[in-house]
């Protein structure tokens, strides 16, 4: 049957969300089904707005950078790191190599706990409570490692302009503890990988569903592991000098484009992250972790990219004469990865569609913004609180 014929037949709509037990984030999904097979889908995700970029406007850059960490509770470190390295580059601040290493350790630990959180969530959606619990159990030592590294389990605030906070520096004892915890983690992660990816029932649920071709991944802008699971071998870490110049690592790629590939790519990335952390710990340069001899001042518009656990993140801003933030912008990977899932879930069973959508590991807290694009006048602006209130009054 031609696709158009199927779409015309799809008159039955099953709405999921905004609030739904399988969708941990606030987005609405409309699935158009033929019997129970999805023939068309629509995902709307701009239902929560925090206005974080607006709050940062005019804020001192140090304060603003700490606020970037609050964009997300899962990938908090990568936000503050990307923002910090953007400002450091713009102001020409030299950063010690030791700080780069510790920032990378933080980012890779974050990738590990984010991916393990994804496994827990994915198995929960599959209805496999035991594997979900085990994923969370394996994740717990990662949180403990972050606690050993930074003193916090979430919002670690490792980077600071010029390096890292002294409390996050790694002494000999901390290094030994982290290496020992890493070895245990690697063992349990490999056991988990071998158990889950060889479980015929699990594989039968995640194979042959959620297909996203390489072309569609490019067309709809799938990012990070979602893009690599569709055969696109690109990872921003290859272009970030802190990674590229210091560590050996492989990019996990799979050609399948299905949910099982998105899971497998993340599992492989976890193993690779452990390797990077081990390299960083074993070759940690012996020097001061922070450079405090710099001055804040005006900064031209700067852009910085990095590879978060979910894919590419983008930050940009400028600083005024007093080192205050002008026009901070942040874009997170869910915005485009989730859109790609509209295409990926077509052809799935209704129950499979939810795991397909979840397989892009959506994180809405860092996605929603209120930027207005006025095509007629060709301009783009952030909606002011007063303007919002005025519009609300007019509607009421």
């Amino acid at each position, binding site marked *: 049957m031609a696709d158009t014929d199927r779409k015309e037949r*799809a*008159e*039955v*709509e*099953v*709405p*999921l*969300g*905004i*609030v*739904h*037990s*399988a969708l941990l984030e606030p987005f*609405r999904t*409309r699935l*158009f*089904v033929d019997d*129970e097979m999805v023939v*068309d889908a*629509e995902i*709307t995700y*701009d239902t929560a707005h925090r206005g974080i970029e607006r709050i940062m406007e005019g804020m001192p850059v140090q304060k603003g950078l700490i606020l970037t960490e609050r964009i997300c509770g899962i990938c908090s470190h990568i936000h503050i790191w990307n923002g910090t390295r953007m400002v450091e580059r713009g102001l020409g601040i030299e950063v010690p190599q030791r700080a780069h290493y510790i920032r990378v350790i933080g980012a890779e630990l974050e990738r590990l706990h984010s991916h393990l959180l994804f496994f827990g969530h994915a*198995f*929960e*959606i*599959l*209805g*496999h*409570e*035991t594997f979900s*619990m*085990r994923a969370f*159990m394996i994740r717990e030592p990662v949180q403990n490692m972050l606690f050993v590294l930074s003193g916090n389990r979430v919002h670690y605030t490792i980077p600071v302009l010029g390096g890292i906070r002294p409390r996050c520096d790694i002494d000999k004892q901390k290094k030994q503890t982290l290496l020992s915890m890493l070895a245990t983690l690697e063992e349990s992660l490999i056991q988990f990988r071998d158990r889950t990816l060889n479980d015929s*029932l*699990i594989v*039968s*649920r995640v194979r042959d569903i959620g297909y996203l071709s390489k072309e569609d991944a490019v067309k709809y802008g799938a990012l990070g592991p979602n893009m690599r699971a569709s055969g696109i071998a690109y990872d921003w870490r290859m272009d970030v000098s802190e990674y590229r110049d210091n560590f050996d690592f492989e990019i996990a790629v799979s050609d399948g484009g299905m949910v099982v590939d998105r899971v497998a790519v993340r599992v492989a990335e976890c193993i690779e992250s452990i390797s990077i952390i081990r390299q960083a710990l074993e070759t940690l340069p012996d020097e001061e972790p922070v450079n405090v001899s710099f001055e804040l001042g005006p900064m031209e518009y700067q852009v910085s990219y990095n590879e978060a656990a979910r894919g590419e993140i983008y930050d940009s801003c400028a600083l005024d004469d007093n080192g205050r933030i002008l026009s901070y912008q942040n874009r997170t990977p869910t915005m485009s990865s989730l859109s790609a899932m509209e295409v990926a879930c077509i052809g799935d*069973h*209704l*129950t*499979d*569609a*939810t*795991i397909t959508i979840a397989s892009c590991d959506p994180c809405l807290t860092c996605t929603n913004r209120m930027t207005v694009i006025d095509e007629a006048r060709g301009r783009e602006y952030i909606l002011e609180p007063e303007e919002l209130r005025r519009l609300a009054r007019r509607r009421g």
Partner: protein
Amino acid sequence: MEWDTFALTTAVIPVVFFASSTYIPGIMRKIQARIQLRIGPPILTPGFWAIFKFIYKERITPVSPMPRLYHALPVIGIFLMFFILLLTTPAWSGVLGLATLVAIAGLVKVEEALYIFMGNLSQSILSVRMPYPDRIKGAIMKGATRRSFEQVAALRTFKLISIGSFPLYLGMFVPAVMAGSISIMSVAAYQGFDTAAFGIRDIFSLSPLLFTAPGLVGALAYVAGYLVVLNEYPFSIMHTKADVIEGPSLEYAARARAAYYLMKEATLIVMSSIFVTLYIGLPPVVGWALVPHLLLCLALPVAAAIISAFTPVLTFKQVYPLSLGCTALGVVGVILAIL
């Protein structure tokens, strides 16, 4: 018929089973929790105290064209289950000629069909969120009919009834083929049960069909069907959290939810009791022999708890072949029984 035994059985058996059934969800949850390296809830919490908790919750009127009927369905289910249970007792074996596997199979089918009625008689608020396409953002416009979670669940129940529970019925009939009768008491008598006088010491004189080749194959088919009828993992697509959340029972709250829980608990123990009667040859009787019967009734819920801890929810892509495989197993059991 001895009227005093009949009256005693009618009064005692449902009460004892009703009380015992409230422990089973707690035992199942505890087993699953231990498999998952968790402590799990206290044994009485999920089945026993949960009932009281719901009884004292504020009552709500569901969004339903017939709310009273919707609320009555679990109560009907409870009565149906205990009626089936009574039909498997020696005291009820002569009542209206209903103590046969055909009658029991028919009544279990009615129990399964209750979920279809539940699904079609309610619509939760979760299914009517944002009831209009957001045109301003370019939403997809179709002449769309909205299908609620409950309706989807009802559709799935229909599919499961159509094909999923075949193994259960074949599993029921394997002992009948071996005994050469569809009467429950004849099946029990075939295994050495004495309907006139049976004491706890006579248990060791039973020759359970479970320990024969056709009996073992039939029992495996029965267990698969048991999971389907219970809508337990991996056959829980009717109420999978991933899409339809609680399925047909989403709108049950307060006392109605307590009744729904009791119906589920009754189904757990009664279907297990039928298994013990058919495959061990030990029907529920008033007396000390009821104790081993109740203990044996734990076997299937324990097996269900272990299986469900290691399986995901299966979609129909997996349910159909699996169900067909288990049906084939049941057919093999019947053929072996004939041979």
